[in-house]
């Protein structure tokens, strides 16, 4: 078979890229997915979307993405419910350093049109009454941050892309990519040989392995991040509550369940996505400290997914040294919330259109040069 572009990975990034390219009139796009729609990090993520970042680039990408999420249902003509809940993110500062940094972050965010504000712990308690203010100094709150259902949101992109003629191949793994004289010739999957000269790497946790197939070294690695969900109760929490210092994010979804996760600072790079009792133990302690009443809820299940970590915790989007080989990876745990811009901007790069947001700084070449890279610190 033949394709103008082969996109590897049917998570939200791959689906968004496929949709945006197809919408701009590109024909014969094939998306190859090893498992099923949202099988990787997308279907495993906390699905929060926030604009409260520490770097200008992340702020811009996040804001534009949230603007899209708010109109996504109509824009994509989706019949289902993407469950977009826009009740903010409350990010608590638990030490002096965070308190100072957050004040700076808010100034940056406000300058970019993001309506975040620095608030006292008393004000934070008004927004989230079950918050334990004894363990925090202050907080920042952005009312337009929110949460979506990652399955239906990705399905919305998938359905729209299919209507525009995109072909999806599920349960097919890319085994190799044939390159001759610096030109991509074909993609060999478990079931097909797809003749193409363009490949887009949106393989999430496996982005490095895809890069290795064409000798493009992508400085990313997979890292397990665990998450759990509780039984549902009546709504008591509007915003996502987050702390970098305490290492927790916790959100009540519309169904009533609480989703929460934290990072393991000792996690080694790997494709392991098994659940651990250590996570359950640490997560329970952390949430009971910050949001004590949640300790009364039963845990329904826990699972894990891979972050695709980049050296500066910022995405890698754009062209590579190999003509026709594009990457959208290294999201470091934030691929879901940036997906609308990932798709739009990569399609603009591919088609040589003017960029809606200048993402030259997200090019893979930034790791080749000696100049300082800006590391995003606002990460759980």
């Amino acid at each position: 078979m033949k394709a103008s572009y082969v996109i590897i990975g049917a998570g939200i990034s791959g689906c968004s890229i496929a949709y945006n390219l197809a919408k701009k009139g590109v024909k014969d796009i094939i998306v190859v997915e090893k498992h099923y729609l949202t099988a990787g990090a997308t279907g495993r993520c906390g699905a929060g979307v926030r604009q409260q970042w520490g770097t200008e680039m992340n702020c811009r990408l996040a804001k534009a993405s949230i603007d899209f999420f708010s109109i996504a249902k109509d824009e994509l003509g989706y019949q289902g419910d993407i469950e977009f809940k826009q009740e903010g993110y409350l990010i608590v500062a638990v030490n002096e350093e965070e308190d100072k940094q957050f004040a700076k972050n808010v100034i940056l965010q406000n300058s970019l049109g993001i309506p975040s504000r620095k608030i006292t712990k008393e004000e934070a308690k008004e927004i989230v009454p079950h918050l334990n203010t004894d363990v925090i100094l202050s907080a920042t709150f952005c009312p337009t941050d929110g949460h979506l259902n990652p399955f239906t949101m990705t399905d919305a992109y998938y359905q729209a892309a299919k209507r525009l003629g995109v072909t999806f191949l599920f349960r097919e793994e890319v085994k190799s990519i044939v390159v001759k004289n610096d030109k991509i010739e074909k993609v060999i999957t478990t079931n097909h040989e797809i003749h193409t000269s363009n490949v887009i790497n949106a393989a999430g946790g496996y982005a490095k392995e895809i890069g290795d197939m064409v000798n493009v070294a992508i400085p990313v690695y997979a890292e397990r991040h665990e998450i759990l969900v509780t039984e549902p109760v009546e709504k008591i929490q509007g915003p996502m509550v987050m702390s970098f210092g305490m290492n927790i994010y916790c959100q009540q979804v519309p169904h009533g369940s609480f989703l929460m996760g934290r990072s393991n600072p000792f996690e080694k790079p790997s494709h392991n996505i098994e659940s651990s009792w250590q996570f359950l133990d640490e997560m329970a302690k952390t949430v009971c400290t910050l949001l004590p009443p949640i300790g009364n809820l039963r845990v329904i299940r826990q699972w894990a997914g891979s972050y695709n970590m980049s050296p500066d915790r910022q995405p890698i989007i754009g062209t590579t040294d190999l003509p026709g080989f594009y990457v959208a990876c290294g999201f470091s745990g934030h691929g879901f919330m940036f997906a609308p811009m990932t798709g739009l901007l990569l399609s603009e790069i591919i088609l040589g259109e003017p960029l809606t947001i200048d993402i030259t700084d997200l090019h893979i070449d930034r790791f080749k040069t000696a100049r300082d890279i800006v590391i995003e610190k606002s990460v759980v």
Partner: protein
Amino acid sequence: MMRIKEHPILDFSKERKIIRFTFNGQEVYGYEGDTIASALSALGVKEFSVSIKHKRPRGFYCAIGNCSSCHMIVDGVPNVKTCITLLKEGMKVETQTNKGELYDLK
């Protein structure tokens, strides 16, 4: 009453201690060894909770603490699995009609 009184193998003849409790404010009783759900079931109560989305009646179903169908408010605590919770003297048992209010154990 739905209790089995005679059985070819099991012996139900022995007198059991009566346990008094309230169901939706009404004073009722079961026997020692009952779970909350078995006592209610014996009293002919079929509706324990409601389904989350359509609020349809839910009753005694899996009886092993898995299905969440028997979640009730017991002594003010919601989402109690009444099918695996032993009945105790003076318990206040109420039908649950929502997902349960998150409570504070203080």
